[in-house]
């Protein structure tokens, strides 16, 4: 009986001593900045424009023009523009083109500014 009590006390003492050696360490939380993945979308592929053929019709050459169309197997019909409307179409086209050029440049500038690592000091 005495031995049993002695052994129990010894085991308890050992357990206390051993558990006293271990301690809960302070949890260290650190933050690491993870840079956002660059979007890096490619520009859309350039399209190949279909060729257009303008036909000028006057009161004098109208018959000749329509005969030529028939000869070529085309429908004898033309979609017309007046000289002023042709001018407007040309200018509209130039404006659309200019807008595309500027838009592309803006996209390139944004890409360069936000995704080019060379201009960053860190």
């Amino acid at each position: 009986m005495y031995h049993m009590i002695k052994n129990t006390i010894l085991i308890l003492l050992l357990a206390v001593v051993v558990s006293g050696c271990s301690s809960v360490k302070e949890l260290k939380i650190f933050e690491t900045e993870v840079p956002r993945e660059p979007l890096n979308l490619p520009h859309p592929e350039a399209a190949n424009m279909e060729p257009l053929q303008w036909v000028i019709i006057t009161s004098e050459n109208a018959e000749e023009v329509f005969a030529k169309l028939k000869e070529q197997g085309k429908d004898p019909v033309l979609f017309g523009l007046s000289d002023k409307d042709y001018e407007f179409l040309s200018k509209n086209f130039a404006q659309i083109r200019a807008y595309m050029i500027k838009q592309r440049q803006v996209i390139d500038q944004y890409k360069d500014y936000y995704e080019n690592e060379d201009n960053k000091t860190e």
Partner: protein
Amino acid sequence: MFGSIKIAIVLIMLAGAGGGFVYVKGLKADLATSEANNLKLEQSVESQKAVIEQQANDFKAILVANQELEKTNKTLAAEFAALDKRFNKINGRGEVRDLGDLAVKRTKPIERVINNATKKAMRCVEIAMGAELTEKEKTATKKSEINSECPSIANPSYVPYD
């Protein structure tokens, strides 16, 4: 009696030594904290310097981007003005060019001119969309060689002249 005084003196001396020890320990801790604070401040100053440098670089990049856009705007405006001039040129008699009248009088040549200009304009759209320039376009330097609709993007070697 005398024994009690001795004990009291010893206790006072011990208390003084203990107090001194605690005071020095406190000073050491304060010093360590101050050193750590100094280090943090130095690091903070360094990181602030880096932020200021980055900001300066960003401002420069924004300025350059704006300047380039402005340059493109001016070039495109000049090309648009040239197109307008082609339609509304003043002839030797002081009259505005009338494309309709010209087309009635010289139908075939005007048709050819319009078709050539359209072909060039189509090519300009392809280039604006990012199509590669041909060697001929890259090396063109004369008016007869260039794409008169959009020389700024089609012919990088061309320098406008009169």
